[in-house]
């Protein structure tokens, strides 16, 4: 019995995407469990997959979506209509045009998704119990907590004054074990085996935030699982006499019939009735039901952006006759030379596709995270100095570690969520005495914090504690509000611990072979083969104050942590002479005068600060100093650029004023994070060099030449692209569903330790990103678009990788993200579809049938 119940629960819970705690915020696609089915076929009540039609119509008005984009979207979605046209009166109108006319000129009434604030008494009670059970730092731990959630609830529910006496009595007769309780409740509630799955599913949908967190917790902590949770829920139903039937009706398809739509459309276009035309128009419209209208708009919205982006990519043919739908796929080798490849830029690693030409050695190379925010600093650095070459690579630099700073009690898992931490790295101090001193100071902080905590939280102490410290708190409030920068400096001075110099123990965590393997993989993946004298690994993090979502602004490839430990580890590995010797043997020689420097990029201030500066050899001090000056100028320019769209900032103010918002405890918009992210470009930097991508694009460096067997590309597509896809959909759904899949406004957030937030005093754990991450003043700042993955690599190689990896097939075939590729600079773009590659329609090119009107 109980095994069967566990299996049933596991089956219904399979699609639930785990939700990570706030302190290591991992972006997830909240609908990730459904990636196996088509994006458009998801019909969850209360969840919007697109914006509503009026928004798209406004975009058509403003030119953000063109009619050409719409026709392209129609043809992409319904390829059968490509060559189809209809006669109305004396005019011949293409089918795509007809549909576009209906979309833009008739504006059929589309249903709007309204998030219901539905919750029932069982939701309310379960939320209360589960929150107190999971409280990470309880002042009064729940009695019987050790016995598990269900057992603790069962022991206490018989005393719960919130329910009636009879319910309390009923609670005494419940089975002792959670799985028995589920079976007991199902049978007492008269639910047959046939309905059990549906009932369990609905129970899990009741508090989706808590359910998702419990799923994470079961995998990572193990003190609660979905079975325990369902046992409490169903038992509550039982003792409260609440039926488990779901009252909400399934959303009905209120589609207008194609015939009535056709009559209206014909009348609109023709000015009168035309029965013959109406029939053929109806046949066309039937292929595009009203329910699909927002999806067509959404696709057009994405195609417009993708088209603009492709045009900015260097080496894209201007007069792209590739839009010709009947042209067969040309032989790549023939077309490669037809369009003159654009020079990448002066001074960088030469032009695309001509690896054999000798390019001048760059002065400094910067390896930054693929994060769209890196695009800004890379662009400004390159603009400033031609000798700087930049690369994009996953922000953990390929070094998956669990990191603990010297002598500390706990560690962070600084690696992508896809990997498990197997390698523990810590710090080895250069000067043991100063490290000891630092430990002592940290120990004193710890003791004072314990004292203050006791003063605040012991039952009898807080009264006089508030009286004696109130004036200090008041002074702090005034200072932090009116002079945040000074307040931050004071706090830093009070808690300073005089960082002692150290190095990371990466050589203890990985064998030499492992280190060389990681280094080789990284170099091959990002196509780094010619080394500058100074190579900088810049891990990124974000510093803000009073921000529960700070971790969501940190590096996604480092488990929602700043990537500093990984940058330090990577630099240590590449500076290791033994590793270099092995790399040389494997055909990747690193010049002896090349030094790898770790650095930290703060995305609020956009400063790049060197780490482990004491390791810089005297020969490289000048270069490091030069880079420090360059980044200073580049950072100022970038901060001014960002100030244009940061609420409350102004490009006219000094950049330091904008940077100061990181210290401001009242600031809810410390930075825009990855808002706006829309595309992922895999290819050498030359193809985007000099272009302003507006910090919206993930950039992964890649050169097919250095990755002969395609293993690097396979890793890029299956790891960084997948992580970027999670981030993209986190933003997408948080923007479209602030009440259900997003976390709503920060102003009412109420944290439960570091586990998550509630909105207000009670309810479900919030999922996703807060409204302040995606919108300002009621207007979306994040344009919700599914990620456009753009690759420059041999198409056959890409095809082989996609067909080998089920995860990629799901994502691309089911329209969760899209894939566009070209062989090399100058050749034509191809779009990946379920049935293979087809030439990318350049939506800026007016269609030939457009002349018919």
């Amino acid at each position, binding site marked *: 019995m109980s095994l069967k119940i566990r299996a049933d629960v596991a089956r219904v819970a399979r699609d639930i995407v785990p939700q990570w705690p706030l302190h290591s915020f991992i972006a997830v696609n909240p609908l990730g469990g459904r990636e196996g089915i088509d994006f458009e076929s998801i019909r969850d009540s209360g969840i919007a997959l697109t914006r509503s039609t009026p928004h798209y119509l406004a975009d058509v008005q403003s030119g953000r979506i063109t009619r050409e984009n719409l026709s392209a979207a129609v043809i992409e979605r319904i390829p059968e209509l490509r060559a189809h046209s209809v006669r109305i009166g004396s005019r011949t109108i293409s089918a795509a045009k007809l549909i576009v006319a209906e979309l833009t000129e008739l504006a059929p009434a589309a249903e709007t998704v309204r998030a219901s604030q539905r919750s029932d008494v069982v939701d*309310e009670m379960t939320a209360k119990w589960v929150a107190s059970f999971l409280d990470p730092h309880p002042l009064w731990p729940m009695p019987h907590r050790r016995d598990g959630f269900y057992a603790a609830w069962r022991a206490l529910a018989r*005393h719960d004054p919130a329910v009636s006496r009879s319910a309390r009595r009923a609670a005494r007769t419940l089975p002792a074990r959670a799985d028995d309780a589920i079976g007991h409740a199902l049978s007492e509630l008269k639910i047959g085996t046939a309905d059990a799955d549906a009932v369990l599913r609905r129970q899990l949908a009741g508090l989706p935030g808590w359910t998702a967190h419990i799923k994470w917790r079961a995998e990572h902590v193990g003190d609660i699982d979905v079975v325990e949770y369902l046992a409490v829920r169903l038992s509550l139903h039982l003792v409260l006499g609440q039926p488990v039937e779901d009252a909400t009706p399934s959303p009905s398809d209120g589609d207008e019939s194609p015939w009535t739509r056709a009559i209206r459309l014909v009348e609109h276009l023709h000015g009168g009735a035309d029965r013959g035309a109406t029939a053929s128009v109806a046949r066309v419209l039937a292929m595009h039901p009203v329910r699909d209208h927002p999806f067509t708009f959404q696709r057009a919205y994405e195609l417009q952006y993708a088209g603009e982006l492709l045009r900015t990519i260097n080496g894209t043919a201007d007069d792209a006759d590739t839009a010709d739908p009947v042209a067969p796929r040309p032989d790549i080798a023939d077309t490669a030379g037809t369009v003159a490849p654009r020079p990448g830029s002066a001074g960088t690693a030469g032009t695309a596709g001509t690896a054999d030409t000798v390019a001048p050695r760059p002065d400094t190379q910067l390896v930054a995270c693929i994060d769209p925010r890196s695009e800004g600093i890379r662009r400004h650095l390159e603009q400033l100095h031609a000798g700087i070459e930049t690369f994009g690579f996953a922000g953990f630099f390929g070094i998956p570690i669990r990191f603990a*700073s010297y002598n500390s*009690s706990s560690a*962070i898992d600084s690696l992508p969520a896809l990997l498990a931490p197997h390698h523990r790295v810590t710090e080895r101090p250069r000067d043991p005495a100063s490290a000891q001193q630092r430990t002592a100071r940290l120990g004193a902080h710890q003791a004072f914090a314990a004292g203050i905590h006791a003063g605040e939280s012991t039952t009898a102490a807080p009264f006089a504690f*508030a009286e004696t410290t109130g004036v200090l708190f008041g002074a702090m409030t005034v200072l932090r509000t009116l002079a945040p920068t000074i307040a931050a400096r004071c706090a830093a001075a009070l808690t300073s611990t005089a960082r002692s110099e150290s190095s990371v123990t990466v050589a203890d965590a990985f064998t030499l072979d492992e280190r060389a393997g990681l280094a080789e993989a990284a170099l091959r993946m990002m196509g780094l083969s010619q080394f500058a004298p100074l190579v900088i690994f810049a891990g990124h993090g974000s510093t803000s104050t009073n921000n529960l979502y700070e971790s969501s602004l940190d590096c996604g490839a480092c488990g929602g942590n700043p990537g500093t430990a990984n940058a330090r580890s990577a630099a240590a590995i590449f500076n290791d002479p033994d590793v270099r010797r092995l790399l040389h043997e494997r055909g990747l020689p690193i010049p002896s005068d090349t030094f790898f420097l770790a650095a930290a990029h703060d995305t609020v201030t956009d400063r790049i600060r060197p780490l482990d500066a004491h390791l810089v050899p005297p020969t490289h001090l000048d270069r490091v100093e030069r880079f420090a000056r360059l980044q200073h100028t580049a950072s100022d320019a970038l901060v001014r650029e960002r100030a244009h769209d940061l609420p409350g900032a102004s490009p006219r103010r000094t950049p330091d004023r904008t940077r100061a918002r990181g210290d401001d405890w*009242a600031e809810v918009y410390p930075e825009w994070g990855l808002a706006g992210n829309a595309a992922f470009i895999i290819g050498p930097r030359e193809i985007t060099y000099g272009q302003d991508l507006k910090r919206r694009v993930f950039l992964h460096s890649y050169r097919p030449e250095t990755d002969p067997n395609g293993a690097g590309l396979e890793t890029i597509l299956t790891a960084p692209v997948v992580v970027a896809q999670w981030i993209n959909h986190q933003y997408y759904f948080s923007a479209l569903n602030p009440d259900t899949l997003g976390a709503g406004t920060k*102003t009412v957030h109420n944290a439960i330790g570091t586990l998550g937030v509630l909105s207000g005093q009670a309810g479900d754990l919030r999922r996703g990103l807060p409204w*302040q991450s995606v919108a300002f003043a009621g207007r979306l700042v994040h344009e919700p678009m599914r990620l456009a993955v753009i690759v420059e690599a041999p198409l056959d190689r890409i095809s082989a990788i996609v067909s080998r990896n089920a995860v990629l097939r799901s994502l691309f075939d089911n329209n969760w993200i899209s894939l566009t590729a070209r062989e090399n600079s100058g050749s034509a773009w191809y779009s990946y579809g379920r049935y293979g590659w087809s030439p990318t329609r350049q939506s800026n090119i007016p269609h030939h049938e457009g002349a018919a009107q």
Partner: protein
Amino acid sequence: MMWTTLALAALIAPWVAAGAGLVGRHRQAEVARAAAAVTGLGFAAAAGLGIATVVSGADAVSVGAGAFMLTLDGLAIVMTLLVLGLSGVIQSFATRYLRGDSRQGWFVITANLLTASTVLMVGAGTVVLFTVAWVAAGISLVLLLNTYPHDRQAKEGVRRTVWRFVVGDLSLLAAAAMLILAGGMDLRLAEVGTVLAGMPDLLAAAVGVLLVAAALARSSQIPFHGWLPATLAAPTPVSALMHAGVVNAGAILLIRFSSAIADSTLTMAVVFVAGATTLVYASAVRLIKPDVKGRLVFSTMAQMGFMIMACGLGAFAAAVFHLVAHGLYKSALFLSAGTGVRQQAARRVWPDRPHRGVASAVAAVGLAVIVPLGAVASARAVFAPDVSAASAALLAFVVLAGAVTLGSTLLVRLSIATVAVSFLAIISLTLVYTVFVVAFEDLLGSVAAVGAVSPWWVLAPAALLIITQWLASDRIGASAVRDVLYARGLSAATPALHPVKGI
């Protein structure tokens, strides 16, 4: 005259700010900044008035006449400074925190209405003006809580608050009506005692109890405690303002009407018992709350219980000092309610706790008892040698807080650095505290509290607090009691949105 000008400036500033909010609804951000600045100017005026009063040694400044007479005495000026100062700072915080929020304008208007009516209330010299300002403050608070009117939890919070405020305000209106009938429209607050003396005993007792009911409702005390925990669906600055400057109005009422309350043993006993019960109840429930703001709510409730309890002891000056210090303390904690994740991250670099030997534990506990006791005793001996019994009872709490804080610090790490820093902190905090308390006693003058309960009564809530702490510490024993109390606490901790049914 300069004094009147300053007083008027302080009084009028928040009304101007509220008016600006109303006029400039379409330029929310600019208006919010202007309103915060105007409130700040009001604070400056009040500070000027305060300095002038101290320098000249005057008792009070009077503004207005008849029923609408304001008497800005020491208490009024201190409270005006607190309310305008906190309101200005919190509004400045909100100019950024609520940036882009469609309800920012609403916040500016209602927060300033609340500030304005609270300033009017603390300065009111007559029963009529106090009552009008009190009701206005209640209405403004309800409007402020309605910042997000479509939110289900906010609606529930407003509903609960309105219901309890109606009961409390009707009590005040009834008491005020009786007093006005007996003493006339322009009855001064200072003359309430004389008027009551001429009233039949039963009626006078009724007035006292009605006034206490009004105070308890506004300060979220048992039996009117159900509203405060339901108010978290309003934005953080609303909570900060409310917890710093509204919920403590109960003590202001008790002090302003002390001549109607302090002479009756029964009324003072009701005040003490309500405060002490809320203190224990809220302290216990707070231990069960998992959410940061929920803990703050119940902490406020307990602190207000402490303040009301002090009133019952007749220690009105101590109550006012508690009110001011707690306002500063709690607003800071609300505004920084988003720092939990950062604090957790900072803890990661801490070393493991060192093993604690028996000798160091004994030393830590010994020092934890001796140092605060010595600091409090000597500070008191230097600044105010004659300590009343009620003050001594409250000072015991100071010693307790010092002992808990110091003991917990030294038990984690007993080193020269921790000992030196924490001794210094405790001694200087105790000194500052004593100086402030003595200053407040001077400022308010002593209110003769004939009916005050015996300070020994404090032992009851203190003992219950310690028992609660023991139950919460998850030791063996008393398992059945613990289960019952935990289940009851949990059910009290979260305001229900749904009526719960049973089979």
